[in-house]
């Protein structure tokens, strides 16, 4: 059901290096890839919200603890990395769909899973060390 690729004049698609390769995939796959990208972006936003939340609570606490700020910064950096990676992954995925090659593995997913587990434990230890 691959739609014929029609490059009409004045209708350039960006990024060109992506749309140059392969043929147009089933629109359903393109749309599913788009939704997955959006889910990754929302995940990035959630990470950043967690970082801001940690710091906001830190600011409201009787004593401002630098370790909590470090935790907040870690979450924020993870959020920014996740945003950039989301776009890269969308592009690699779309390329795989266009060329009919196997889909790339979610390289960031295990890092995020284990990383968040570590952050959870760190937050718990921090809570015990610095008090509420």
């Amino acid at each position: 059901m691959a739609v014929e690729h029609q490059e009409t004049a004045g209708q350039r698609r960006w990024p060109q290096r992506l749309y140059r390769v392969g043929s147009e995939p089933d629109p359903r796959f393109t749309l599913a890839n788009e939704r997955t990208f959006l889910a990754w972006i929302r995940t990035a936003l959630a990470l950043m919200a967690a970082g801001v939340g940690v710091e906001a609570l830190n600011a409201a606490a009787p004593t401002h603890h630098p370790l909590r700020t470090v935790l907040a910064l870690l979450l924020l950096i993870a959020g920014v990395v996740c945003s950039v990676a989301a776009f890269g992954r969308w592009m690699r995925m779309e390329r795989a769909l266009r060329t009919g090659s196997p889909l790339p593995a979610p390289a960031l997913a295990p890092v995020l899973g284990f990383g968040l587990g570590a952050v959870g434990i760190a937050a718990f230890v921090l809570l015990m060390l610095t008090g509420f």
Partner: protein
Amino acid sequence: MSAQSSGPWDPGLQVERTTLAWVRTAMSFIAGSLVLLRLIAHHSAVAGVVCAVLLLPLSAVLAFLAWRRHVRAERCLRAERPLPDGVQHAALAGLSVLVGAAAVVYVLVS
């Protein structure tokens, strides 16, 4: 792919679900930006206004683009033309990085 012809009428409501995902994302960005602005403005009113001017209109434009993309995608499906491209994806990822930068600034000044 199933043998029965699904045609351009999209019985899976893929375009609609994708539009809702865009709207949901844009709304999260508006809400997140508002909270962040409130926190930043607590420290510096000027920084708060600067961030507000940067983040809120961009998030609002994103919500508007979601609906425009819906119409375009629907039209593309019916005309059997390729779907809209990835400019909007890059813009959203950029906005997300911008929100992250504003959040880092907040954490560093607070």
